[in-house]
């Protein structure tokens, strides 16, 4: 799989530089940073979904030993900027969702803080709430440009074409509310030192220290120079740590009330279910019009989702149908309804992930309708250029992924008929789905390289959220400097390092790596191959990195084998195979880990993940890992990811494209398609729980 000269570091499966320290427990995460005089914060959350805080009685909590301060909307500092209402923490007695911060206790131990928080009496006045997304919800609206640029898109005459088409498929698919559950919950330590103008240090579990610094300095009216955000290691985020959330603001409010103390705040797993984002449920209607030979004439993809009343967020689920297949007539739309729910936010491949579940399920249904191999159907609809922009593809390798993937998975000779293969008590089937992900480079990251004592130190305020970014940036720098990777030291995870964009949208390595290559080139130009002690150079991610005249995307193909128990409806997936086109692979070990991680999360979405909403109480009922099921070891039997040997220099100077999210795109459709092939039961709502197969195939 290696795609580089043997001399280079790029292409080698180097282990993570901090891997050993992490495994041994020596790598300090945000919450483990040593601070003087630590105190502990525990929040009090609203227990109604909409209403007002009438009164907060804090006396009993305040009298507990060890309690330093009890914060409410009455005594919390007035924030400088609250235009983004997610950050308007304890500013007014309004409750916009269940699980909102309405008070907080800071005490000398976490136990004291937690107990005292339980003694804060919050009198709430409940108002009528609405937390359930229904199809055609009366308050659906078209989202604003900020939340969903180009919410609607139309080409040709899709309605007329659907009337004329020989075969029309009209299906509605649903995905539930889902929550990110990184191993490390969201944590912060906030330290406010009030000498001079004051200085804030925030140790934070984040995907972007600079993003946090910029946001919080605005919220508190501080100069960015007064704020430092440190985040050396992050135990997963999947998007939920891509921006600060209310808990960061609360930690800082508490810190400013207690100068000189490190205020430590680790969200409980339960608290993460209302405070750090979730994936909106989606109701997606897919209409495909095709000729009898499988050529798509029209594609209409309409997605309905929820957002919160606090802040608008649109899951852009229908965007995938603008790019995937050739069809002269197409439309895609997004509609939101603002419910009394916590604020939705990024969850791995927001938009593409639920969208491709729906559209790739629909393609499978169309293939079944036409009695055609689903790979063949996709072959018939391969667009020569990007249907949306009309631009030529930089590297559209979808068909290669499907065809070569089919070979490696053992697709050929598959009996297309559903419910045709049985092993003991199990029905067995296989399914396929396509994957894609846009290539994103965020401009503005800066890398600095300094030479001292034979060692090149690369500094950039990037974040390694478990992806291997620290290791990979070292490999990129080593090759660009033409020095052995052992001589490169990488410093990341601190806003005092040069500006860097967020680790999100699969853009990290592309954005930061481009800056690293530019900095290395500048360094070599200035200092040559034998730099003097203290030699340094810096450069910024160029604006024109991505070839604007091409459509740049990653592609992939997922294959899955599903077993469905005839007696119980249990679904097991013993085999998953993904073949991807992600440009040049800089580190096979960490890329493989990203791809199989995405596939496992996609399997988890297909079979398990579902935040159950109690509509009467406005509550997510299953708020812990015993009840919110994610795929565990026994569910993940055989997952294999491979990639095509390629290089796409239109995408980045390294030839690479992002690989963090494509693994989860389309995965759930492959599993659902396999379950249909196994049983003949088409489930159009995730997750694929046993009862859905039991009811329809049972006696």
């Amino acid at each position: 799989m290696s795609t580089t000269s043997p001399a280079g570091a790029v292409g080698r499966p180097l282990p993570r530089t901090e891997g050993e320290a992490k495994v041994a427990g020596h790598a300090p995460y945000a919450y483990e940073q040593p601070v003087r005089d630590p105190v502990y914060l525990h929040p009090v959350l609203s227990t109604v979904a909409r209403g007002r805080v009438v009164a907060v009685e804090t006396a009993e909590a305040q009298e507990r030993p060890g309690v330093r301060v009890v914060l409410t909307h009455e005594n919390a500092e007035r924030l400088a900027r609250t235009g983004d209402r997610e950050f308007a923490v304890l500013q007014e007695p309004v409750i916009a969702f269940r699980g909102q911060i309405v008070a907080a206790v800071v005490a000398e131990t976490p136990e004291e803080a937690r107990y005292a928080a339980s003694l804060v009496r919050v009198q709430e006045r409940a108002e009528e709430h609405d937390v359930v997304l229904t199809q055609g919800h009366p308050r659906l609206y078209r989202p604003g440009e900020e939340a969903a640029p180009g919410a609607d898109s139309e080409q040709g005459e899709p309605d007329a074409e659907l009337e004329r088409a020989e075969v029309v498929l009209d299906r509605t698919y649903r995905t539930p509310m889902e929550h990110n559950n990184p191993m490390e919950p969201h944590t912060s330590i906030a330290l406010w030192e009030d000498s001079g103008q004051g200085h804030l240090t925030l140790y934070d579990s984040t995907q972007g220290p600079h993003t946090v610094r910029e946001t919080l300095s605005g919220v508190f009216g501080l100069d960015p120079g007064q704020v430092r955000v440190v985040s050396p290691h992050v135990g997963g985020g999947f998007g939920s740590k891509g921006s600060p959330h209310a808990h960061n603001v609360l930690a800082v409010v508490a810190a400013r009330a207690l100068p000189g103390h490190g205020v430590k705040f680790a969200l409980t797993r339960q608290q993460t279910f209302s405070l750090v984002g979730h994936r909106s449920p989606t109701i997606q209607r897919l209409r495909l019009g095709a000729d009898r030979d499988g050529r798509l004439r029209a594609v209409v993809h309409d997605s309905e989702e929820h957002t919160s009343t606090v802040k608008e967020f649109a899951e852009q689920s229908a965007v995938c149908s603008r790019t995937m297949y050739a069809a002269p007539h197409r439309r895609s739309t997004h509609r939101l309804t603002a419910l009394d729910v916590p604020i939705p936010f990024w969850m791995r491949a927001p938009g593409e992930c639920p969208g491709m579940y729906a559209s790739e399920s629909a393609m499978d249904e169309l293939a079944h309708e036409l009695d055609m191999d689903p790979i063949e159907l996709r072959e018939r609809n391969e667009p020569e250029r990007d249907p949306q922009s009309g631009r030529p593809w930089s590297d559209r390798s979808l068909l290669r992924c499907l065809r070569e993937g089919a070979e490696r998975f053992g697709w050929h000779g598959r009996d297309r008929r559903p419910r045709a293969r049985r092993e003991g008590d199990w029905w067995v089937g296989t399914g396929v789905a396509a994957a894609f992900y846009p290539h994103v480079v965020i401009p503005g990251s800066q890398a600095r390289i300094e030479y001292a004592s034979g060692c090149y130190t690369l500094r950039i305020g990037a974040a390694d959220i478990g992806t291997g970014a620290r290791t990979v940036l070292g490999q990129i720098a080593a090759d660009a400097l033409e020095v052995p990777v052992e001589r490169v030291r990488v410093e990341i995870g601190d806003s005092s390092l040069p500006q860097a964009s967020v680790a999100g949208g699969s853009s990290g390595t592309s954005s930061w790596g481009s800056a690293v290559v530019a900095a290395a080139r500048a360094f070599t130009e200035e200092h040559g191959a034998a730099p003097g002690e203290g030699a340094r150079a810096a450069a910024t991610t160029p604006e024109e990195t991505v070839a604007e005249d091409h459509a740049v995307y990653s592609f992939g193909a997922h294959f899955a084998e599903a077993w469905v128990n005839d007696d119980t409806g249990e679904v097991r997936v013993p085999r998953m195979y993904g073949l991807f086109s992600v440009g040049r692979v800089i580190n096979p070990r960490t890329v493989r880990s990203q791809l199989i991680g995405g596939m496992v999360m996609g399997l988890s979405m297909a079979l398990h993940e579902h935040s159950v909403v109690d509509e009467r109480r406005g509550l997510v009922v299953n708020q812990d890992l015993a009840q919110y099921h994610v795929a565990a070891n026994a569910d993940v039997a055989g997952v294999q990811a491979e990639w095509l040997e390629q290089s796409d220099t239109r995408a980045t100077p390294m030839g690479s494209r992002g690989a963090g999210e494509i693994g989860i795109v389309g995965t759930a459709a492959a599993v659902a398609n396999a379950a249909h092939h196994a049983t003949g039961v088409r489930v159009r709502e995730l997750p694929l729980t046993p009862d859905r197969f039991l009811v329809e195939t049972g006696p």
Partner: protein
Amino acid sequence: MKPFDYTRAHDPASAVQTVAEEPGARYLAGGTNLVDHLKLGVAAPEHVVDVRGALDETVTELEDGRIRVGAAVSNSALAAHPLVRSRYPLLSAALLAGASGQLRNAATTGGNLLQRTRCPYFQNTTTPCNKREPGSGCSAREGHGRDNAVLGVSQECVATHPSDMAVALTALGAEVRVLGPEGERGVPMPGLHRLPGHRPEHDTVLEHGDLITAVDLPALPLAARSTYRKVRERASYAFALVSVAAALQIREGVVADVRLALGGVAHAPWRAHHAEQVLRGEPATEEAFRAAADAELAQARPGADNAFKVPLAVNTICATLRSLTTQEDR
């Protein structure tokens, strides 16, 4: 969590004396459930008495052929014990179907029996729950009902008992040894766990101060051919949607004897007496299994969210008995 005193008991009698005298005292063994409750505010004892070191952690064969399991025997150790694996395969299978390896190492036999429902409303102190706060109402009845019980439910409570081990012990007819302020007694299974009725706050028939010291497994040759089938959406580390513990003895194609218990369907591990009765003396066929299962589930009162548990329980009973039949033929 509320601050509490902690003491370590050195023998069962003194532990019982301490707890019986203090209404706010609670026993702690493996801590896999109580510690969660302390953090969540579901339990707020004033005094926690750690009995793990005070209780027997051995498995011994008694003179009459019964097996005595000390209350402090860990779930992992019990599952792996040669006597259990050979004589009571259903018990070993049930234990291994529960929780995770780490939890099974920490959890004890006595504690496993006394673990409390995982009903999400019971575990969330911001919602009404008759079991947690008598008289406050049942949130699960009208709320998220997928995990609710279908058998033996009451207006006040639809919670299920979460233990797998207890389902196997119920099928076996084990006897729980209990030390109370008045001395020692045996409590048969089924019989330890109650149905909710009007007092769902009481999971079992035990009184405050009672301490489980051991579990006696009867000499039951029938159990050598037995199994446990747990149905769940996740392949491990999940509570049962429905589970079946079964032992079957067939002579010349006819069911000579059978033991059947269900998990995930009721406030207590559910001994399927009706089904057993229907089956005894019948030919060991799919039709007879289904008739027996239908007879047992005829009393089910599911809601909309958990209606699937009824056909699921029927199918799982059939599948489990079928698998034992095949075993018999080998």
